[in-house]
């Protein structure tokens, strides 16, 4: 096989893995949403969809949902701006999907002479890329609100835009602290930096230098702003399907489904970002490139392939745990009112993340090297 074709195959594989991972997680989350809420509220939850009597804990419900949405009437209001109305769900979902591309899901995989970084695209400023894609998602909801020719939708779109802008400012400011600690905007470098030991002169090599320990304040701020950016409860006042209705009232069928999917995919992206920046990404504690090295002296040598597989599995596990946690928050808290969320964003999260940057800078300058 010619090297060009091999390169192309590798590139397709990297992108394909991330694409399938995000899409499957997003689809699976619709099931998790139902089942987890059911468990939390002492119900059984969706379990009726079956194939030949096989129910599988309701796992076929996402499939049934997809068929339902695809076969529903696709209604466009008479006075709507048709082009923008059709474009809006696409914009929402596309920018959510491509955002995951810069998040590394494993270390470098070596096959023969080749070194393949396990990341869809390698970027010098990977954090900024994810951030840019998340911030472009606003256009989807604004276009939807405006193009529907419905005043409730327009107001919903404006609420959504105001919320997402305030959330993104806080996200951008809180990740700066992480970039300062690990000295890079490249997510691969940041994840590698988290493999070292925390305070080796006092604690030995017991505790890894994960972002959640070096930047605890940024972790809380990022997670809060991240939940706000996904527009889900407790920040769901842009939508509020049942009472205040939001930017996608006029949408039906699969276009409505795409807005739903964008929210779920954004949840996966926020979970992936949190994992990569604060939970050590693909790092397994005490696992180096040649196997486990435990602080009490024992070591287990492992082959390169085993290490890589363990790391990718660790990343998937951490993302799943974060998704579970985001669901937990979503089914626990009541909805914020619009002014409460705005006050939290601009007077709470944003000043605190600026404070975090200043404190981090002082600590880095004052820390004995």
């Amino acid at each position, binding site marked *: 096989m010619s090297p060009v074709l091999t390169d192309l195959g590798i590139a397709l594989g990297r992108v394909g893995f991330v694409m399938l991972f995000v899409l499957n997680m997003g689809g699976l989350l619709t099931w998790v949403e139902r089942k987890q809420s059911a468990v939390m509220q002492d119900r059984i939850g969706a379990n009726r969809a079956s194939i030949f009597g096989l129910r599988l804990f309701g796992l076929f419900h996402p499939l049934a949902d997809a068929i339902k949405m695809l076969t529903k009437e696709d209604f466009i209001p008479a006075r709507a701006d048709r082009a923008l109305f059709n474009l809006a769900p696409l914009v929402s979902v596309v920018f959510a999907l491509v955002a995951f591309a810069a998040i590394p899901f494993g270390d470098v995989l070596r096959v023969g002479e080749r070194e393949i970084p396990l990341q869809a695209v390698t970027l010098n*400023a990977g954090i900024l890329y994810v951030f*840019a894609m998340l911030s*472009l998602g*606003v256009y989807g909801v604004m276009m939807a609100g405006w193009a529907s020719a419905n005043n409730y939708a327009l107001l919903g779109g404006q609420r959504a*835009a105001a919320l997402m802008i305030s959330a993104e400012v806080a996200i951008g400011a809180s990740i700066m602290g992480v970039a300062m600690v690990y000295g890079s905007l490249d997510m691969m470098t940041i994840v590698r930096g988290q493999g070292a030991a925390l305070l080796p002169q006092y604690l030995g090599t017991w505790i890894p230098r994960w972002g959640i320990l070096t930047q605890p304040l940024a972790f809380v701020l990022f997670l809060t702003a991240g939940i706000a950016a996904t527009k889900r409860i407790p920040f769901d006042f842009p939508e509020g399907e049942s009472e205040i209705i939001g930017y996608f009232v006029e949408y039906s069928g699969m276009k409505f489904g795409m807005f739903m999917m964008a929210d779920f995919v954004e949840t996966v992206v926020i979970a992936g970002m949190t994992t990569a920046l604060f939970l050590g990404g693909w790092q397994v504690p005490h696992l180096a490139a040649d196997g486990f090295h435990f602080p009490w002296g024992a070591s287990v040598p492992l082959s390169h392939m085993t290490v890589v597989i363990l790391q990718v599995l660790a990343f998937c596990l951490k993302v799943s745990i974060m998704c579970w946690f985001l669901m937990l928050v979503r089914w626990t808290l009541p909805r914020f009112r619009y002014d409460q969320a705005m006050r939290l964003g601009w007077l709470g999260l944003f000043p605190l993340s600026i404070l975090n940057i200043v404190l981090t800078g002082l600590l880095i300058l004052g820390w004995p090297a």
Partner: protein
Amino acid sequence: MNHLVFFAVAVVAVVSALGLVLRRNPIHGALFLVVNLGCVAVLYLLLGAEFLALAQVIIYAGAIMVLFVFAIMVLIPGKEETGPDPLRSQRLLALPLGALLLFEIGLILSSSVFVAAPPSRAPAGPAAAGGIQSVGRLLLGDYLFPFEVTSVLLLAALVGVLALAKRKAG
């Protein structure tokens, strides 16, 4: 490959720029401008200026234009501006001024781009031009003073706007 991407993006950029000028609907115009800014970001990317491209997307497309679209949505919900053009008298001036601008652009291009060996001012090396390291070094090293002065200027503008808005409301 790079040439192919360049021509494709250049066509989209020109079409979206025309769309911005020719569409009467202000929301459509603003969205065309977003597309245009995105195309410019891709052009930066083709030149290897990764940081510049991402900054372009975050600041222009992701922040400034969102504010534009937001303001247009609040002020003109759905109605196109169909009344007579209030700036009709300026159309006479537009033609000579436009011609002057074109002439200037032509002059600049002919003196720098189309000469045999263009003067290279970009620093050579792996982190050349648009890399985040070199941008940071230039911004907080060589150009620290202008950089700080600009930030003071922006802060003054911010405070000024707030003061003016407060007075009108009170």
